[in-house]
């Protein structure tokens, strides 16, 4: 018996290996999960940034260079989200496949719905503005679908023999996402037009999709930490408009949000904007489950309307 299994193993080992999985690196865990959804076991996926870290300020560690060096495909958020750290990693990867513009470089934003594309003159007096539009676009499930489609298409192009596999994985994801969207829409239906305040401009696509209304930000300008004057103005505005929900990304300090909460009676909700932001958030769909549950619980608790 043992001999048999050894022989079987030997045969297996010498048999032509199953098609090698496409080696994918992604900038963020959201893109990593969407790649897993459509890539299944034919894609080996790893993310550079963790879900609980500020994606603007990832460190360009040499250990990432080693991973990029072996990648067949690099999927990036784009819209200059990674401008401070990804270009030097790509350059040092010595990997022709993942250079900007090469076949193995996929900018997920190119097929997504992008909001807040600035018009008119731009200066840094406006803070760290993103001239190509808001890069937090994955927080709209519609964009999640578009990203997944773009990744599935790219994987099919890279591994044509597996195209049918990727297409069926995408169809399955599309179906599950559509079901989840029905659930989320039902959950959020009673709160259309609810006014909220967020820390950073991370949520335009999210609030657009779920019908919330952002009336202000804890940051006086994108990327600029809270200032006393702005905080006082914001507190006044929140009181006037009776805003009871304050959404904060997990990588920001809670001191200012909490003092705003104390002044206004608003509930500070720490909402992870990415997969992996909390242990429970294991994939793209559970990201929305988690955030919407927290949000609805906070709305009910404060009686916000």
């Amino acid at each position, binding site marked *: 018996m043992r001999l048999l299994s050894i022989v079987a193993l030997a045969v297996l080992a010498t048999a032509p290996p199953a098609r090698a999985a496409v080696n994918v690196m992604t900038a963020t865990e959201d893109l990593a999960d969407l790649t897993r959804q459509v890539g299944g076991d034919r894609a080996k996926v790893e993310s550079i940034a*963790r879900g*609980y*870290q*500020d994606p603007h*300020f990832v*460190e*360009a*560690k*040499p*250990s990432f*260079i*080693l991973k990029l*060096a072996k990648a067949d495909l690099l999927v990036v958020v784009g819209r*200059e989200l990674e*401008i*401070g*750290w990804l*270009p*030097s990693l*790509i*350059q*040092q*990867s*010595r*990997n*022709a496949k993942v*250079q*900007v*513009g090469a076949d193995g470089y996929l900018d997920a*934003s*190119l*097929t*997504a*719905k*992008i909001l807040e*594309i600035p018009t008119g003159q731009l200066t*840094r007096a406006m*803070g*760290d503005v993103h*001239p*190509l*539009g808001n890069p937090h676009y994955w927080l709209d499930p*519609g964009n999640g*679908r*578009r990203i997944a*489609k773009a990744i599935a298409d790219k994987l099919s192009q890279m591994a044509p023999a597996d195209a049918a596999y990727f297409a069926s994985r995408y169809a399955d994801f*599309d179906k599950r996402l559509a079901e989840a969207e029905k659930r989320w829409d039902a959950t959020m239906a009673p709160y259309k037009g609810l006014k909220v305040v967020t820390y950073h401009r991370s949520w335009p696509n999210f609030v657009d999709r779920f019908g919330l209304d952002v009336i202000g930000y804890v940051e006086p300008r994108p*990327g*600029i*930490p809270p200032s006393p004057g702005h905080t006082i103005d914001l507190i006044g505005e929140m009181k006037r408009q009776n805003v009871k929900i304050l959404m904060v990304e*997990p*990588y*920001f*300090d809670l001191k200012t949000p909490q003092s705003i909460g104390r002044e206004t009676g608003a509930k500070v909700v720490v909402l992870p904007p990415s997969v992996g932001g909390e242990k429970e958030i294991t994939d793209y769909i559970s990201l929305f489950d988690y955030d919407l549950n927290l949000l609805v619980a906070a709305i009910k608790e404060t009686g916000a309307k």
Partner: protein
Amino acid sequence: MRRCFRSVTAFVLAGSGLVAVPPLAVAADEVVQAAPPPSPASDDLSQLKGDLEALRQDYAGRVAAIESRIAALEGHAAEAAAPTPEPTPAPTAAPSAAAGSKVFNPDMAAIGNFVGAAGKSPGGGEPSLNMQEAELSFQAVVDPYARADFFVTLGPEEVALEEGYITFPTLPGGFLTKVGKMRDAFGKVNGQHPHTLPFVDRPLVSKNLTGGEDGLADAGISVARLIPNPWLFLEATGQAYQGSSAIFTAPTRGDLAYVGHLRAYQDLGESTNIDLGGSIAYGHNGVTDDTTTRLLGVDATLRWKPLRRSIYTHFLARGEVTWSRAGQADGAQNAVGGYGYLEYQFGRRWTSGLRYDNSQRAEAPWLRDTGGSFILTFKPSEFSLVRAQYRRTSFADTDSPANELLFQFLFAIGAHGAHPF
């Protein structure tokens, strides 16, 4: 000096000409305004004509753009009409503002570095108020095979090419190759531009052993390769230079200067990592035709930055030691020096640092200078900082130590650069 600045002005004007393409006619306008006005009436008329022409071209361009977008939309509509239920077609158009050949202009930035100093220093030290340098950078991809980076520094006394090189990032065999003028890959601090240093000045060891502010920088060729191994990041760099820098002077064409660098890096968890380096530099030093200088260096860095609070806090410990063997007419002199540096970020905008300096002098190793600094940095945003440094230095050839206060304003405009690591 004046001529030099005039040529800079011409250079900048040429640059702005690059930025504006004909349909916008901005550069042309500027030139017209800059030129002495001829007779006012004819000037107005030609100005009007020019404006009209610009408008006409502008509108022609816009109509063409709108037509192409309509065509694109019709294409999308046809797609949508097809039986397969496509997800909503991508509503994103390429940013239209960056039109024409302008998109191929390099990323440009200017960084101002203003340094002030107070207190007594035996050698005079830094000037009281000094625009130490303005650095202009131009960076872009050249073609599918290479990118280029230029850094021009405008100092109070000189205009110089700080670095200017082409990089081939994807040569076969994994050889990351650079050709041009570069700062040598010797240790950590030598490779850094003044505005990326965590202190106002360079450590004593840089001044005494590796060429001070200019440091080791030369024209040459650099090749760097990762050394595959299952344990850690290991990169070996080999460089050959002309032999024309603060330390090296080649008497003949054949006397190149060489630099070798080995870097090892390892993550110790997601927040902590360790970075080790060893460097060697060798070349003729120009004292006589046969004398050479050999430098050996080791550096070690420990970093800690918790990912969940990465914008609020980090800790860094770094040490660098350099050994110099400088050939003199009457035999070689051996000198050693180094610095230790601790850095702690205690607020989103606040970082403090502590540095200890100790270095012999390359040509007079019996003289040993020591010093200590406390550094406080305030960063209003990613694009500016204000820094103060208290520095106490005991020079070997003076009796009383120098107590100085340095302060610095750093400000950057233009393209968003890479975050330092």
